[in-house]
């Protein structure tokens, strides 16, 4: 079994993206949920209810801090104010894990609140590597890097995404967050085989897995276009890819992300229970 994990202390079980409406449910009936993930930017206020709830939850669950605003792939320099806020949050919370995206969101001081795509070129590699090194040095901890969901490609790209991610990880020592839903979305949208992607991807560096639902649309030629909406149950082909991954990695911290049209707790917990069950089944098949 592959295991080179050094950057997270999350348990090898199911987690969910934390939503304030589930605060009481989580404390009363966590069920299969063994850890929580929060979006860093939502907890950068000075105080108030959200911070107090997080402090309380952190006494009961390992927490993963997931950043959506660092703009690791940005052409501009990283925002020092934002990094300082990130450091402040991580320093008081001391979470089990910190992750960010292979994407950009800020340019010329305008933050677009979305994860925007990158061409996989030598320049991008140099920039992403420098930014991850800067983040890790400032925060005093290693981060996990998440693969994006793609709707289009860059003609200028000269690297495949798995090779690019492998090289970034090699140069920075960062761990990887494998979003299986993103792989499925990108594979569908850019017409490659998800299994080929996973074969090329450095699974030995995976320290966390994301699972989520997506929407289906079509492009101007009627070709299937999947949208990373995080507003539905995990789709069956994504569960199948998850099986494929954990058959190779063993159980990993696996997160159900559900950010829009957030369901009642039992629906979310049920998704976490399924992830747990699949990992248990795979672990029995392939003893460590």
């Amino acid at each position, binding site marked *: 079994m592959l295991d080179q994990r050094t950057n997270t202390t999350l348990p090898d079980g199911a987690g969910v993206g934390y939503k304030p409406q589930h605060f009481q449910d989580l404390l009363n009936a966590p069920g299969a949920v063994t850890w929580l993930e929060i979006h860093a*930017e*939502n907890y*950068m*206020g*000075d*105080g*108030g*209810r*959200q*911070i*107090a709830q997080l402090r309380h939850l952190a006494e009961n669950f390992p927490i993963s801090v997931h950043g*959506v*605003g660092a703009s690791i792939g*940005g*052409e*501009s320099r990283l*925002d020092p*104010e*934002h990094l300082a*806020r990130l450091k402040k949050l991580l320093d008081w919370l001391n979470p089990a894990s910190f992750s960010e995206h292979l994407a*950009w*969101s*800020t*340019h*010329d*001081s*305008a*933050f*677009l*609140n*979305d994860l*925007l*795509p990158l*061409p996989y070129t030598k320049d991008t590699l140099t920039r992403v590597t420098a930014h991850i090194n800067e983040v890790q040095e400032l925060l005093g901890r290693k981060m996990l890097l998440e693969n994006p969901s793609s*709707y*289009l*490609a*860059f*003609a*200028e*790209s*000269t*690297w*495949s995404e798995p*090779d690019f991610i492998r090289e970034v990880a090699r140069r920075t020592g960062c761990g990887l967050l494998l979003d299986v839903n993103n792989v499925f979305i990108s594979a569908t*949208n*850019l*017409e*490659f085989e998800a299994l080929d992607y996973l074969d090329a991807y450095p699974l030995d560096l995976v320290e966390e897995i994301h699972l989520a639902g997506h929407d289906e*649309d079509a*492009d*101007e*030629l009627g*070709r299937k*276009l999947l*949208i990373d909406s995080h507003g539905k149950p995990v789709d069956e082909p994504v569960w199948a890819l998850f099986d494929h991954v954990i058959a190779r990695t063993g159980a990993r911290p696996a997160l159900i992300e559900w950010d829009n049209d957030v369901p009642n707790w039992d629906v979310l917990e049920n998704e976490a229970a399924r992830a747990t069950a699949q990992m248990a089944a795979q672990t029995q098949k392939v003893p460590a």
Partner: protein
Amino acid sequence: MTQDTLTQTPARATVSQAEFRAAILNAQADVPEGLVNPDGQQASKRFSVYRNNVVHSLSEAMLTGFPVLTKLLGDEFFREMAKVYLRIHPPASQLMMHYGAALPGFLESFPGTLHLKYLPDVARLELALRRAYHAGDADPIDPAELTSLGQHDLMEARLTLAPACEVLQAKWPAKSIWDFNMADGPQPSAGGEDILISRIGFEPKTFLLPEGAAEFISSLLKGRSFGTALGLATSNTPDFDLTATLTVLIAAQAITGIDRD
């Protein structure tokens, strides 16, 4: 698309983030050359996914952040207005909890709202309530600490107010409009309102201030002594009611410390 097919043709169009950003924020702009479909052809609808995501997420943040304005203007109108706003004022920070800070000024000149003169004050109040919600925590003092001070000590003292505390001097009845729309308050009547925004526990609350109190509390917030603040308030408002003002501050759990040097 494989690495081989990509490297066959040299001199591919490169797309800068400045170009990408400009095309995201301008629905009429051409999709930058070099963004492609799986067949290598110029992307169009696929680029719109990013455009829509950005517009949707920023509009939603505005909608969530300004519930009363949304109610006053209607969901549909507010969304359309937010689309105009976000293109002029994309977020300057990653903290979406404070997004929309330029809305009061925007409302004063936006053709659809400039005749609704009370909207900017409502926007200011909603922004202040959000700041209060996320402000630092602080416990209020026991009011006895204040009343037990002798006259001289009180005048020399500096009161610390909670980080959530702000004063809004609205030309329009912003608090009454808020209460009417969100808390079953009575029909607002004309006239400006001086408003204290504070937090009781984790709940942001608003309090109407008596005449002169806004100036008094603003002086305290600037770190002026109690006596100086009182002098300024009474010189501009001869019948300034200190007792009524302190009653509001105590009810608002606004006083969190007494610094007697």
